[in-house]
């Protein structure tokens, strides 16, 4: 396969850590004030595995993913901790090194494929752009590789669709084009921010299948940002749950789904439509906290059915136990409550 020819180094093995966040804090700066939005996130992305980052909107999961590609929005910055790509701390990255890393080491797929494509250029040309600009290929070669890539991501009649503009593509085809662009230079890390949220349900499954297939073939370390636990269950092996800028629970997907230890994870799972419940949804009560005025103690305590005095006073640390980690004073009770409910 031609795409991986970009990396001439020794072949990376599955399970290698391709990217890592170490106690990363991200805040929005206005003047001297910094509003913390992400408060100490640690994650490891391993080759060949999909880590899902789930949480409500505003939990900081998108910012976390953008930090991994150095594209935080204006005003937002990593205030402490480190973002590590292929063993290199990006803290000292110049604009130029970030630019070289993007597309080549780490690539990203965005939520709205219509907005993510430049409306002024032919889709094929946008897919060929990394070949032209980064690999300095000639127009014809770049075009050939772009067409091949378009075929690989399942765009029918790739040759004749090369010159079509984004508005001439359907939503699913646009997202395929965005995926093709992300995969063009054979990155080792793929960030996917709600890649199916803006798509028709019927198309969602196709895109997820495509992502899972490419992920396996290219041994990508993938971070899937999603609020949809159903989507997550289909492609991810590991899951990290974020709440109010922190990781509150982390572990292998099956394990976390069957034995959630954090009341927020439990709430998310129970908020999912489930045939066993007779279709009843149990939404989590309340709203996520305002990052400018976080509640004292555990950030989830105002919405938590398990909350006690200690939750109001003390923010629980993320306690690791094997490949699981949870930040809750009452983790055992939470797990137990789910287990007693299960046989119903």
């Amino acid at each position: 396969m031609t795409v991986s020819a970009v990396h001439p180094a020794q072949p990376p093995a599955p399970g290698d850590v391709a990217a890592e966040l170490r106690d990363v804090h991200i805040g929005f700066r206005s003047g001297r004030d910094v509003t913390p939005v992400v408060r100490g996130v640690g994650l490891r992305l391993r080759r060949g595995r999909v880590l899902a980052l789930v949480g409500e909107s505003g939990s900081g999961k998108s910012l976390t993913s953008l930090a991994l590609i150095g594209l935080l929005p204006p005003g937002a910055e990593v205030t402490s901790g480190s973002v590590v790509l292929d063993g290199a701390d990006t803290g000292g990255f110049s604009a130029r090194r970030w630019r070289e890393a993007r597309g080549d080491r780490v690539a990203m797929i965005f939520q709205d494929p219509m907005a993510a494509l430049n409306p002024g250029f032919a889709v094929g040309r946008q897919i060929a752009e990394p070949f032209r600009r980064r690999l300095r290929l000639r127009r014809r070669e770049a075009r050939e590789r772009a067409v091949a890539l378009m075929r690989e991501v399942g765009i029918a009649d790739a040759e004749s669709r090369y010159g079509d503009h984004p508005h001439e593509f359907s939503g699913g085809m646009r997202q395929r084009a965005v995926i093709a662009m992300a995969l063009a230079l054979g990155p080792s890390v793929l960030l996917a921010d709600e890649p199916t949220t803006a798509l028709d349900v019927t198309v969602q499954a196709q895109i997820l299948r495509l992502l899972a297939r490419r992920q396996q073939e290219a041994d990508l370390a993938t971070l899937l940002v999603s609020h949809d636990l159903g989507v997550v269950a289909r492609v991810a092996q590991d899951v990290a749950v974020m709440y109010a800028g922190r990781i509150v629970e982390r572990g292998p997907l099956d394990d976390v789904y069957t034995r959630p230890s954090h009341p927020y994870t439990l709430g998310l799972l129970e908020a999912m439509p489930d045939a066993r419940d007779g279709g009843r949804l149990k939404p989590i009560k309340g709203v996520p906290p305002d990052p400018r005025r976080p509640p004292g103690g555990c950030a989830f305590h105002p919405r938590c059915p398990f909350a006690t005095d200690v939750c109001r006073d003390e923010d629980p640390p993320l306690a690791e136990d094997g490949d699981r980690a949870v930040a809750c004073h009452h983790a055992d009770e939470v797990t137990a409550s789910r287990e007693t409910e299960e046989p119903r």
Partner: protein
Amino acid sequence: MGRFLLKRAGQALVVAWGAITLVFVVVRVVPGDPATLILGPDASAAQLDSVRADFGLDKPLWQQYLTHMGEVLHGDFGDSWRLGGGAMGATLDRFPATLALAALALLITLAVGYPLGMLCARRPGKILDLLVSTGSLIGQAVPSFWLGIVLILLFARQLNWLPSTTGGGPAAVILPSVTLALPFVGWLARLVRNGALEETGKDYVRTARAKGTGEGAVMYVHVARNIALPVVTVLGLLMGNFIANAVIVEVVFSWPGIGSLMVDAITNRDYAVVEAAIVTITVSYIALNLLVDVLCVALDPRLTPESA
């Protein structure tokens, strides 16, 4: 496209007709008698009458108008009494000089204003951005005749770097075109800056960056493509503006263009030349608008299936 062009050409004709009519009326309503000017103050009444008869000035206005429109349809704007020969011919002889001036002014505005705007968009609210927005206000407040005189004093008289009149060779075009361009450099920069700033917030810019595209290509390829429509539109208007604005600047710099010709013609009541000059300016304005319309259609990806 064909239908569209036909429709716009029809509209252009109506505008041209309106302009000719307006000029006809205005020129005849303002005080001053061409016959007196031609013959001098000592002419006898009989001589004046005979000159008026020659130019058809003794007929009622409506009759003059109809005859005139008939002639205009044949491309005849009458003869210049001062220069002899056809008024339109005299005007078109001077037109290339005005076009050259306006084109160079447009080039200067674009070459300076565009990149300046792009730079401001990359660091909004920073020093350069503030300087440019202040400068654009000042630039537009400064009258061009004053600016022209200041530039002459500075670069022609004091520093002696550049010629101020046509006698100085091809470099003579520089000062007048800078005078034309300067007030609009900041204006264009602001426009490019605002457009680019709006675009850089969009998702496709983030996608381009995520592919590892450099900032230069992000701004001058991705963003530039999406602000091309408004930029082309204002450049077209600006070119028309420069042709019309040339009147004052040409007088200040004695530039042998259509503007200085027209000012001479006005002071001498040379109706035919005034009219020919105004019609030429109007028609070029209309033609530029038409060109802009066509370019905009060609640039809109939703209207043309362009293959890259």
